[in-house]
């Protein structure tokens, strides 16, 4: 049972990690907690359902399922990335020099707007994602893993490694690290701060879209409210790992998933959501900057 719970925890933990990356990257650069990020994840799930329905209607799903899924993924990522880009331009950029609280309130506003926008256009009832894989999977000793769980974990790992390589080794990655350190200095040495911020939002939103689509496939049930809980959990993961740190977001997400599933099975499943926050409180008491972060007292 222990190994089975570890697999369950890893699956959901890697989804938390993907969303947490978006929170952490934006915070690292703008020191803004982007509360609308959970809604991007929810949009990703909805767009996945819409595009897949479109490909099913034109017969592509029946003809070539992997291709249809791949195109669905690409389109969801592109749409969510443009949502992320637009949100930054409309709701955060005009407030860049405003007091710290203003963009935060703007973020909450965007979140409420997106939730209601989806509720009004897509309806308030649950949407069901088509059952593409059934319960197919494989048995490994005493552990049963579905192919979908494997796909979720592998996709997350690949994306996280790619992100790390991008930030470490490319020119844009270097510019992002520079802006995160000091916006003014970075612009003085010729870094285009606006472009860097846009790229950050695009990457973060793209990752959230992937998470949204994978969760829609995994649970098969989507509603306009899923971004709220997922956003809070991912935010917790980001703070747990040390907000602003990419390594921390990944680690925090996976830790959160494991704590939830192991706590849920060995202590009591009724308080599943509480364990994450208990761990968070303990970590913040012992190490206020999070596991991988630096302690800076002035941050919100």
């Amino acid at each position, binding site marked *: 049972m222990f190994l*089975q719970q570890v697999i369950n925890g890893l699956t959901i933990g890697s989804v938390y990690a993907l969303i947490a990356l978006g929170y952490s990257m934006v915070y690292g650069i703008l020191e803004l907690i982007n509360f609308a990020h959970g809604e991007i994840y929810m949009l990703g799930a909805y767009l996945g359902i819409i595009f897949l329905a479109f490909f099913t209607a034109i017969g592509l799903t029946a003809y070539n399922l992997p291709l249809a899924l791949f195109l669905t993924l690409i389109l969801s990522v592109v749409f969510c990335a443009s949502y992320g880009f637009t949100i930054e331009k409309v709701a955060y950029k005009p407030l860049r020099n405003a007091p710290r609280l203003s963009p935060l309130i703007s973020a909450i506003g965007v979140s409420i707007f997106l939730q209601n926008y989806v509720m009004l256009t897509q309806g308030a009832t*649950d949407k*069901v994602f088509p059952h593409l894989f059934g319960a197919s999977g494989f*048995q490994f000793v005493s552990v049963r893993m579905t192919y979908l769980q494997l796909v979720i974990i592998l996709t997350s790992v690949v994306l996280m490694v790619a992100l790390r390589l991008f930030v470490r080794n490319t020119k844009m990655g270097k510019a992002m690290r520079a802006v995160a350190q000091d916006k003014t200095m970075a612009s003085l040495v010729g870094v285009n701060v606006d472009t860097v911020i846009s790229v950050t939002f695009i990457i973060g939103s793209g990752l959230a879209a992937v998470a949204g689509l994978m969760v829609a496939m995994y649970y*098969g*049930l989507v509603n306009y409210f899923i971004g709220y809980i997922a956003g809070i959990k991912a935010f917790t993961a980001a703070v747990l790992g040390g907000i602003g740190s990419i390594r921390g977001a990944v680690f925090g997400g996976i830790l959160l998933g494991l704590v939830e599933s192991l706590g*849920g*099975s060995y202590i009591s499943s009724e308080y599943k959501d509480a364990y994450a926050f208990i761990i968070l409180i303990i970590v913040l008491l012992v190490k206020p900057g999070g596991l991988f972060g630096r302690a800076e007292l002035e941050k919100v």
Partner: protein
Amino acid sequence: MKKVILFLLILFLFSFGCQKKEDVIRIGIAGPMTGDQAKMGMDFKNGASLAVEEWNGKGGVLGKKIEMIISDDQHDPKQAVSLANKMVNDGVAGVVGHFNSSCSIPASDVYNRAGIPMITPGSTNPQLTEKGHRGVFRVCGRDDQQGRVGADFVINYLKLKNVAVLHDKTTYGQGLADEFRKFLRSEANVVFYGSIVQGDKDFKTVLTAVKARNPQLIFFGGIYPEAGLLVKQAKEIGLNVNFMSGDGTIDPKFIEIAGVSAAEGTYLTFSPDPGNIPSAKGFIEKYRSKYGETGPYSIYAYDAANILLAAIKEAGSADGRAITEKLHSMEFSAALGNIRFDEKGDVTVSPYVVWVTKNGKFVEYRKP
């Protein structure tokens, strides 16, 4: 002087508003019209609307047209109480609703204070009619009857010994699960008893813990979104056991969420198929031509509205207390058959039977 004129003007406006109220008879329809249980709420609304339209077509009741006040409680008890107060202020003669026991119970206090009768088409928790409110009625059965039918089926028919019991912590879900557990007596062991959170999507943790105890059947007290995910995820972790639930799960969305193959063979306790009741035939035809396929509670909402209106007619006034007395004393010929309420407000005859899902459809289970 100006102030006095203004004051009189306002007073005049208010009195105008009051007078207008008397032109119609208002009844409240309450249920979850939006949110993840919106399907049930819409079934309520459609069933009750059909009844009201028929009455209005015959000239209304007491010579006045009937107006429905549709209230969306979003299966939230707080919302249900505030809407109950609003409907009382709007001067409703009676209320058809609510759906969730957790909404009906607190809302019933509000109606009781105002002396307005409520008839719920779908709240099955025993507590609702055990509070001693005179104006509270239900046209459906009670969880203690339902839990007993489920437990008897497991013991005597399936002959299973080890059972896991889960619920969603709501008044309805936990109530049903507890009644089921109680009626298992010592005939079967409850190897796991636990709860999940309504609205959660990941139940693999709790299911993996259930799997470790090797039950032969999982009983779930709750509503279809969670039931669907439970069934689906149980299959995904290789937990292939019988699944049983109550009337909150009997909705086509359950099969859609779980998938046809995973939902196959799920046992559900519910009242008999209206399709087999001769008196329901006319209702089903009219409902189909207007709103499409009937939901599990459409007919209950239709009957609840008809009974309420018949009692208003018999009482000869829209006074809640007079209507309540008529509801207690009359026998109603409804689509479900003849209905009479006992002292508590429960129906005197409430048959529960076991249903099973077969090829993506719910069918009444017939012992071979």
